[in-house]
């Protein structure tokens, strides 16, 4: 996945056929990871006001997830934004809202996969044992790392990590 054009209101990426398939497969895994029930506060003495906001938060996140899934489906099925090229590759054109939506969904999958892997701390050298059961989680974790990295570098304007030399196709 390479950034081939950056303009103020859009980013254009080129994906190989395999990268496109990997992106679709990764995004489809969203359904495998239910939303985590993270408490709204760590303060045991938090008042009723804070605790009562938990239900609102859970509902808002659930609704948001449905909206994001619909948005991603719309993005990937819109031939103006996700177009098959004669070469067999794909061109993905993201507006600002698309970029954030894709980042959010990829990261949600990343967090879900990480939780299913037992919340390993890779930075501290913790490595989960890869099994047939969790192999797809590990795969999704790695793939989201790749796609998020490219997207973030493009959004940050870091040419070293995201751009490819040469003219756009």
């Amino acid at each position, binding site marked *: 996945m390479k950034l081939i054009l950056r303009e103020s209101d859009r980013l254009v990426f080129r994906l190989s056929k395999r990268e496109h398939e990997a992106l679709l497969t990764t995004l489809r895994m969203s359904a495998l990871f239910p939303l985590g029930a*993270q*408490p*709204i*506060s*760590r*303060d045991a*003495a*938090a*008042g*009723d*006001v*804070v605790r009562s*906001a938990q239900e*609102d*938060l859970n509902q*808002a*996140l659930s609704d*948001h997830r449905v909206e994001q899934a619909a948005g991603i489906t719309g993005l990937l099925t819109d031939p103006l934004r996700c177009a098959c090229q004669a070469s067999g590759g794909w061109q993905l054109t993201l507006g600002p809202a698309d970029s*954030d939506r894709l*980042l*959010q969904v990829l*990261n*949600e999958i*990343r*967090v879900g996969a*990480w939780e299913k892997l037992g*919340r*390993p*701390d*890779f*930075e*501290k050298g913790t490595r989960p044992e890869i099994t047939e059961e969790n192999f797809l989680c590990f795969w999704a974790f790695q793939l989201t*790392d790749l796609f*998020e*990295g490219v997207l*973030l*570098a493009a*959004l*940050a304007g870091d040419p070293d990590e995201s751009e490819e030399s040469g003219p756009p196709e």
Partner: protein
Amino acid sequence: MAGTIEITRPETEKTTRDQTRETGTPGYLVVCWNDPVNLMPYVTHVFRTVFGWDRPVAERHMREVHEKGKSVLVRENFEKAEFYLHQLRKFSLHVTLETAE
């Protein structure tokens, strides 16, 4: 006058939330906690997106989260704090709402 009904508003106990709304007291902290899953550039990007911070400010908070385990992002009244919490949770960051001392 025919058809006029006098309505009496029931007295209700004011909650902290009501008082906060009225006074705007910034008594709630939005705290971001360190975790080993979210990428550092991702966290910086989310802070910039949600709060509109410049990159150095966003990076300072991101580093504080990474190095000290947490960072207080904002101190606000309940409504604003809750709003920011929702926005940050949409990006799957580990954030909580705490009451200020």
